[in-house]
């Protein structure tokens, strides 16, 4: 016996339903009802995807279709024709696949966030032409200048000395490397801007036991510029922000601000390490000692702890030299062992 099922047939010309019995017979499907009788080639009929509580639709090439509420009979008929649900429909049909999809989704997010995004950001940052990089740097400086900086109070000869020594470690490439000094309310700090500008605060120079220590910090900041860390962070925070907005939709607010902030913190650590490695290499090449930088790091850590205790955060959205450095002890250890190796 050929499999059959009851259905409502709509001819696509009027909204009048026709109660029919559909029978699958070899390569055709026959519809028989009180008001009409039609035969369609089975190969040209399309059946809609399975839904738990909705009828399925069998659509024919002329746009007419059957609404089938009797799912078990339809299933039997479909099975007889060798029809199989698509992969997506099978994934959607069971809770265990849904849970697997959920786990996979979370996994993709975590992996993408930890590995793919940093990799892509590095790649993308490398494509940014020097003029654009310089321009982004200028914008960032202009933005931050008014917020935290005041003219420097350092004696001109001290500044000249540092600038002169800086020329020894600055690389020669398309960027225009410069050091500038500012008094600021963010304490001992140094900021590297895309395009080559490094701003050192008076407080940092005052805290540094020697010019070598300041040069150590400058070498580290050069590492940030060379590796395009700020650009990479700009890219990653833009992407995480966009993804969070897409996901959260209307329920934004806190939900969107949070991931972007977390992104900034966790990327910084890897980048600090990269910048330290760069600094070690640069200082060694210039024959400068590493120990002063390690000493200064410890002093800065102490100074910042003091400031935080006093309740004075930096109050700025841009991370400074120390605000994102939770692993100072580890970094100092690395510098000291590199210094010992050199001897």
């Amino acid at each position: 016996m050929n499999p059959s099922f009851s259905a409502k047939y709509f001819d696509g010309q009027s909204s009048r339903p026709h109660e029919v019995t559909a029978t699958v017979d070899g390569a055709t499907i026959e519809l028989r009802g009180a008001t009409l009788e039609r035969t369609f080639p089975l190969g040209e009929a399309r059946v809609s995807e399975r839904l738990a509580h909705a009828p399925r639709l069998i659509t024919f090439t002329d746009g007419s279709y059957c609404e089938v509420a009797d799912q078990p009979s339809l299933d039997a008929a479909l099975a007889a024709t060798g029809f199989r649900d698509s992969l997506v429909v099978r994934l959607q049909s069971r809770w265990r696949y849904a849970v697997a999809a959920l786990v996979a989704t979370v996994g993709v997010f975590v992996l993408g966030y930890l590995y793919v995004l940093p990799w892509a950001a590095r790649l993308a940052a490398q494509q940014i032409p020097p003029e654009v990089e310089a321009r982004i740097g200028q914008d960032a400086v202009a933005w931050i200048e008014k917020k935290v900086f005041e003219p420097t109070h350092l004696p001109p000869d001290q500044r000249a000395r540092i600038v002169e020594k800086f020329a020894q470690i600055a690389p020669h490439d398309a960027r225009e490397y410069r050091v500038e000094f500012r008094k600021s309310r963010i304490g001992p700090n140094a900021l590297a801007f895309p395009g080559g500008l490094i701003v050192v605060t008076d407080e940092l120079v005052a805290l540094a036991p020697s010019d070598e220590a300041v040069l150590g910090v400058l070498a580290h900041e050069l590492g940030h510029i060379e590796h395009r860390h700020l650009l990479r962070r700009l890219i990653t925070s833009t992407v995480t922000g966009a993804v969070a907005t897409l996901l959260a939709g209307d329920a934004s607010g806190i939900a969107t601000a949070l991931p972007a902030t977390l992104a900034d913190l966790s990327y910084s650590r890897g980048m600090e390490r990269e910048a330290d490695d760069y600094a070690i290499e640069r200082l060694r090449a210039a024959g400068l000692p590493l120990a002063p930088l390690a000493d200064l790091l410890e002093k800065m850590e102490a100074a910042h702890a003091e400031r935080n205790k006093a309740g004075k955060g930096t109050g700025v959205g841009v991370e400074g030299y120390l605000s994102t450095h939770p692993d100072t002890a580890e970094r100092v250890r690395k510098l000291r062992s590199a210094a010992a190796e050199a001897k």
Partner: protein
Amino acid sequence: MTEQSDYASPAALAAPRRFQVEFSGTGGEYFRIWIVNLLLTIVTLGIYSAWAKVRKMQYFYRNTRVDGAIFDYHGRPGAILKGRIIVLVLAMAYNLSFRFSLTAGIVVALALAVAMPWLLAQSQRFRLHNSSYRGLRFRFLGTVGEAYMIYGLPLLVVLAVGVAMAQMGLQAQRGVEPGFAFIASMLIGYGVLLLLWPYLHYRFKRYQHANSAFGNTQSAFAGKVSRFYIYYAIALAALVGVAVLVFGSISMLGPKRGYGSVFLFGAGLVLFYVVLLAIGPYISARVQNHVWNTTRIGAVGFESAVKARKLVWIVMSNLVLIVFTLGLFTPFAAVRSKRYRLQSVAVLSGDDLANFVSASASEVAAIGEGAADLFDVDFAL
């Protein structure tokens, strides 16, 4: 456009039959579709989102039933993908252009303003053209010209304000303080937009509901703009009222600073936000009722009885649950609010809805739906 004067209320129909809209979707089933959609969209870097939209639309359409027959969605993923790529490119052009120069930004913004009404008309056309019930397609007959009439003015205001703000940003970088005339003109711009908003909302609803067709039968709309102003006025009054109440009582307490006043301040702030969040669903409930109660398709009328209080509760509790489940409640929330909105509507008809016929080929050609194949692009996101 002329006002429909031949409008008769559904109750005036001769012995109307009543078909309550039924919705059979469940949160659990839609969750499984949603999570698979999400995963595939991510791993295909967004490309699958077009297929995801089709599955989502089909889920909601096919689970919606009137008089035992379901709706269906026919949008093709290719057309949706095409539209999404175009919108993405436009959005990126808009965001990046201001970084190059103010002129580039204004040029792109103007081009967008010119394109936007066309895009919105097209998305309306795509959605209706790809919706069907009982084998007959819906159609959208609204002209692009009318879309320009509706969106032209607000777009110009938004653009003017946007350009002004970009200009101000550039000046601020150079250390120039914005002039008084500048700020005044921006405030006036916003003020005009605020005053016009209920009218624009009405015009948009009229554009949709007066220009739709089911088969060869065109819809008629008799909604009143005054109702829109009333809804918005009530919402605004509630917001201002709660603000005055909360901040007034706080300032009455005066300089006494204790845990009590801090608590009161917090509670007042929460109350203010609750009212702010309630405005959306309140207006949406009132507008749905008014718009559907005054819409006719031939001899068929509608009766929408969404309770604003209930919809506010659904939307707000959804929001809380979405936040606490880190988004996993989203599909359940979508089904929940859709079910309430749909099941609050009934179709009223003198007969059994079986007498509609499809538009003839010449009618379809006359409104340029042949071109719909050429421009088969979905711009709705």
